[in-house]
């Protein structure tokens, strides 16, 4: 059973149709990337999943049924607009937010200590939130998302303000949670993170689902007839079946002519006695697909 099942939901604000017949699901132990340009309707979709807004039409099922107050304790949410009480200490702020997730004080204390150590915030637990750096506040916000061991995690731009070390730590945490059966929705503009983490993705533009499926399938769908090679010997200027040869970051991109497959190109290179170090089909990057879809150049 999916942890989240969204069926054909629509939502309008006045005359503006923010979400238009969107459907998707998220399985336990899966990371779904929710992608889209600014104003595409991602936050509205998340708010409908969280029962902050009601859809005008369509159905949403969370943990096998409609959202309830009890189910809110099973959800960890990191909104794009970060929010912590600035005037109180970090520990007091996180303790209060954790208590609203139904946790007992003793458990909160233990978990907070664990997370403070993990996020290297132990020395700051008694500092006011406003005295912490943006990155530290981001880590604190992540603690509120994860501390109650939720079954569903919804994170919106979780890597903003984090340095590479902490970014990797959060990625590892999300992967660990996924491996433990947690259903995760990852909202981000940083396509390389989505590419690295997600199992499936849904791309929203102007309220509509433009792409939905497994990452590999979508990349294949958008793949061009090109291969990337790294050679230890120089390539000739002209190769049969190759229409264009372009050097890109230490690799060479070979554009294939019509009906010339990557296998044909490989055979041709071997025939020319070229020493290959790497050979791969040039799959489009997610940000290329994103731009292509958003700018309406699909297919």
């Amino acid at each position: 059973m999916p942890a989240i099942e969204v069926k054909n939901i629509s939502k309008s604000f006045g005359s503006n149709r923010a979400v238009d017949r969107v459907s998707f699901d998220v399985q336990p132990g899966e990371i779904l990337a929710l992608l889209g340009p600014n104003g595409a309707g991602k936050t509205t979709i998340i708010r409908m999943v969280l029962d902050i807004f009601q859809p005008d039409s369509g159905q949403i099922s969370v943990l096998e049924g409609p959202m309830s107050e009890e189910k809110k304790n099973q959800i960890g949410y990191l909104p794009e607009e970060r929010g912590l009480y600035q005037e109180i200490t970090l520990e007091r702020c996180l303790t209060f937010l954790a208590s609203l997730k139904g946790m007992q004080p003793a458990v909160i204390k233990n978990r907070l200590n664990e997370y403070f150590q993990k996020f290297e915030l132990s020395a700051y637990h008694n500092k006011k939130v406003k005295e912490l750096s943006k990155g530290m506040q981001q880590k604190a916000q992540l603690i509120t998302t994860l501390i109650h061991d939720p079954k569903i995690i919804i994170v919106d731009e979780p890597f903003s303000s984090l340095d590479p070390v902490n970014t990797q730590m959060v990625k590892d945490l999300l992967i660990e949670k996924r491996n433990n059966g947690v259903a995760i929705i990852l909202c981000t503009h940083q396509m390389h993170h989505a590419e690295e983490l997600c199992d499936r993705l849904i791309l929203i533009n102007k309220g509509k689902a433009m792409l939905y499926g497994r990452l590999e399938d979508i990349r294949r769908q958008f793949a061009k007839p090109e291969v990337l090679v790294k050679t230890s010997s120089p390539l000739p200027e002209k190769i049969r079946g190759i229409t264009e040869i372009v050097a890109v970051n230490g690799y060479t991109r070979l554009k294939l002519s019509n009906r010339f497959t990557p296998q044909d190109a490989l055979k041709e290179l071997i025939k020319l006695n070229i020493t290959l170090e790497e050979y791969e089909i040039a799959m489009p990057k997610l940000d290329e697909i994103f731009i292509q879809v958003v700018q309406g150049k699909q297919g």
Partner: protein
Amino acid sequence: MHKFWLVLRHAYLRQVQTKRFLFGLLSMPLFVLLIIGMGILAARLRLKSDPIGYVDHSSFLTDPVSLPDQGSFFNPNLLIIPYSDETSANADLQVNKIQALYVIGMDYLQTGAVERLALDRPGENADAQFIEFLRLNLLKNQPEEIAHRVLNGSSITTRSMDGSRSVSEESILSLILPFSAGLMFILVISFSGSYLLQAVVEEKENRTMEILITSVSPDQLMAGKTIANLLAGLTQLGAWLGLGLLALTAMQLIFHLESEETFNFGQISLLLLILIPAFVMVAAMMTAVGATITEAREAQQISGFFILPMIAPYWFMNSIMSNPNSTITILLSIFPITSPVTLPIRIFFTIVPAWQIILSIGVLVASAIGALWLAGKIFRTGMLRYGKSLSLSEIFFGNFKEGGD
């Protein structure tokens, strides 16, 4: 329900543990103390304790009775020195041995004329004590109780036609209570309302709201915050009242003031019946307003706007006091925004029919429930609106279903 208490506790402690709250708590009593202190100092500086003298040409003070020793900090007993002639009295006046010289004319008993001579302006108590001294001596041959009554005057008590209530003109507390109840109401509403507005807007500004409503229902959140901030306002008022009573007791002990005032608990219960739903109503309205706006600065301006109609009855105070049963006064005591101030004053000045009191409280309770309902709707719609205030059409026609029932 558990989360409601968590929200209430957090919101209350967050409010009362701020420097702003403590400053507000202490600044007003300190300010009042300062004003009182300055007043006392100014009053005391106008008094002098140097002796006064008199020359009696009318000879009615041949065997004078001295004023009883009832001096206090504000009215120190002055030594009153008799002189046989003006020359010796003037000599003492010149060397400041006496602060003023009173010359009683030969025809004093017919005219009451007394001349005062002084180098500087004498203390304000000099004339008063000399007149008291003259009065005492004019009455010295009268029976003691007659003299006492003439000196202490009469006391008029106003009694209602049905005999249910009576008010002495000397009973200051019974006059203060209805006026101060209204003022206290306005004060608590000002504090609680501004705390509430600030808290709601701050949570929108710092984006905590979105985290909160994914953990707790909007209704629990709103109710918890409203009551917490109301309690914060009451805490402030309670602390002030406590300090005021402490100061009053201290003043009674220091200045030996006598008081026979007692609180009328029936009147206080009625005040509570009026004020509690009024508090809830205004707090709910403030919450609703907080949810529709986006900046703390805007909140402060709006909280001031809320207070205006509540203090309106004070503008019509003369009319309310002189004609407490006029149509406009009755309407003001039933209209929920003005009734918390008007009704207690009317109850003091007239016999308000029971139906009007019941109607007034009923309207207040209904308004409180209505305000809570409306606030819940607006809160759900406006709580996540960042950077853009809700329009009236959105509030009343547009997006109530956004909040998700």
